[in-house]
């Protein structure tokens, strides 16, 4: 076959059949100038048996040619044929190794068997991560309380304007969506409840159903979830972007404490406004439920109110609203904490923002479950 090519750019290559397969003897400089020709040449070789590439007589070897050689070897080896390099100089060897190392690994990752220990390790990791997060959050709570106590002693350091601003954004801004949501929940509860209760002729209990579920659970829980989605993300985004732009460092350089300036007004704004939003949700939920009960079941507003006042324990309202500040604290802490975790790039800002929302909603639901158990235990 071909012994040598007279084209200037073509690689010089001898071919020899040995006992076990082919031996290709490369000659002269192998560089980017003839890499394409070299690749074509190698592709032409019959793909049978082992191949030996003899580089003894190769002068210069650059990364382009090394890439051709290494990918030739990889292709053959994937097809189950052995390729060996012989006659390598130290420089060539290390170049080939470097190129082989920097090639991207195949996209189809080999499946590693998922063993019991792996599963155990992963569970352990998740739990350890969770515990660490909770401890960090507790630390943050401590910081918040300490700064709050400090501002009580030094009221001049308190950021009143900031508090008002955030209370407006967090509270007032959320009123329409919270009111609408609660109204619709009331409507749905009345509608579903009446369809079921009608079967037993117990329509009038729909009032109790609406009152208890909204006042005790749904009003405040759903409000918290909405606020978690709106506010935790906006806190994280605002604080995170300040962190990203080194504004927080600049602040500390000016002698401002980020906890006093950024966290206290934000978290306090939530603690103040969330109970109010919960109250709004309660009223709107009852309104929606009452309206639906009137339309669907013919329970007049007067009857609804009588039933509501006589049949519903005030405890339900108290239980509902007691939870609000705690949820507010959870949402605020998670939002601010996530903001401080942002590192220098926009990608981490996005990641922390969405994770803050997920964590805040999850934490609120967990806390709600804990409250349910607690109140059941003390018999309320």
């Amino acid at each position, binding site marked *: 076959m071909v012994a040598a090519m007279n084209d200037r750019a073509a690689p010089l290559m001898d071919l020899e059949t040995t006992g076990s397969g082919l031996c290709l003897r490369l000659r002269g400089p192998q560089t980017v100038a003839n890499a394409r020709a070299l690749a074509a040449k190698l592709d032409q070789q019959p793909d049978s048996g082992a191949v030996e590439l003899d580089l003894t007589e190769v*002068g210069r070897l650059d990364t382009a040619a090394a890439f051709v050689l290494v990918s030739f070897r990889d292709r053959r080896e994937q097809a189950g044929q052995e390729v060996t390099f012989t006659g390598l100089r130290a420089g060539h060897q290390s170049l080939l190794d470097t190129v082989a190392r920097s090639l991207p690994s195949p996209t189809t990752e080999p499946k590693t068997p998922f063993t019991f220990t792996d599963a155990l390790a992963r569970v352990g990791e998740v739990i350890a991560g969770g515990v660490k997060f909770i401890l960090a959050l507790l630390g943050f709570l401590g910081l918040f309380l300490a700064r709050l106590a400090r501002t009580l002693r030094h009221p001049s350091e308190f950021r009143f304007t900031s508090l008002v601003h955030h209370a407006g954004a967090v509270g007032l801004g959320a009123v329409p969506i919270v009111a609408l949501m609660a109204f619709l929940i009331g409507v749905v509860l009345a509608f579903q409840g009446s369809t079921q209760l009608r079967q037993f002729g117990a329509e009038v209990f729909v009032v109790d159903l609406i009152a208890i579920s909204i006042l005790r659970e749904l009003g405040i829980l759903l409000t918290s979830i909405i606020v978690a989605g709106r506010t935790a993300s906006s806190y994280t985004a605002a604080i995170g972007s300040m962190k990203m*732009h080194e*504004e927080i460092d600049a602040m500390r*350089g000016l002698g401002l404490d980020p906890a006093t300036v950024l966290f206290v007004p934000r978290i306090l704004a939530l603690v103040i406004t969330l109970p109010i939003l919960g109250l709004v949700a309660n009223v709107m939920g009852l309104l929606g439920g009452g309206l639906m009960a009137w339309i669907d079941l013919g329970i007049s507003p007067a009857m609804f109110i009588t039933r509501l006042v006589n049949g519903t324990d005030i405890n339900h309202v108290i239980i509902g609203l007691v939870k609000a500040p705690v949820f507010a604290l959870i949402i605020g802490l998670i939002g601010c904490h996530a903001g401080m975790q942002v590192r220098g790039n926009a990608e981490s800002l996005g990641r922390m923002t969405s994770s803050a929302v997920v964590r805040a909603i999850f934490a609120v639901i967990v806390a709600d479950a804990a409250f349910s158990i607690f109140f059941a235990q003390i018999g309320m």
Partner: protein
Amino acid sequence: MATVELDNIKKRFGGTQVIHGVSTAIEDGEFIVIVGPSGCGKSTLLRMVAGLESVSEGEVRIDGERVNEREPMARDIAMVFQNYALYPHMSVRQNMGYGLKIAGLPKSEIAAKVDEAAALLQLEPYLDRRPRELSGGQRQRVAMGRAIVREPKVFLFDEPLSNLDAKLRVQMRLEIRDLQNRLGITALYVTHDQVEAMTMADRMIVMNAGRAEQIGTPLEVYERPQTLFAAQFIGSPSMNVLDATMQDGVLHLGGATMPAPTTATGKVTVGLRPEHAIADPEGPLSLTVQMGEPLGANTLLHGRIGDGSEAFTISLPGVHHATAGERIAFRVLPENLHFFDPETGARID
């Protein structure tokens, strides 16, 4: 006005150590540039001086007093950041005076100081604008103004010019240096740009992977780099490095031999700055040109040295028309050869 001392400073983030013991003493009014590749720990070191990051080990002293435990505010420093870190909702005047307002200075005094700084920085026409209505260079000047009004003992700069375009960078370089000179305030300046370091520094700290490779004046580092890293990092285009052998006082390099003034023997790593090559038809060394880069005042020729395969660059004054494959003979003065231990990278004299 103050001295700053770093005494074997170390920093660990969790289990990973990123600063491995840096020591230096900075004199009153000195302009020190910390230079190194991205991720080598420059910002971390500066932030430890600023008090934005705790010191894991070692001591930071300002004016001889230990400040490790002090809040940034209590250290009497002012820091300028890459992203300016200005408050977007405040005017330039408010931004510059904010630190003073927090410190509780009377309004008239704040106004006087802000006006003075604005005059110094030529910011007077912009005092009532918002930061977003300013160009990058002006914003950075406002950030400096905010630092100046506080009359700190030490200025800290973290890559303040990285967000500016090349031309403005050159201009701001001069402005910062001039300002620091006039105010006489000790400054620590972080950059990854070795040209910035060379042009601005009284002394520079060349950092690599959390260690100070060399501390010295720009010319000291350029002329007598103490490590291979410092040799290659400082200077543009960077120093050529070749493996060579010393035998009986004769250097065998790139297929040539020449006398060399060094105590090294056996295998050595030789460094040669591109600009120290002197074109000479009789020269012992030769370059097989692969590519030429005419820069106007000089021409960079990239290729291989001798018959070898090692990449090499030389810089010749004026315009040179060299075609690929051409061989150019050159020589170097023996005093321009740098010798390093191939194992440790330390300089051998």
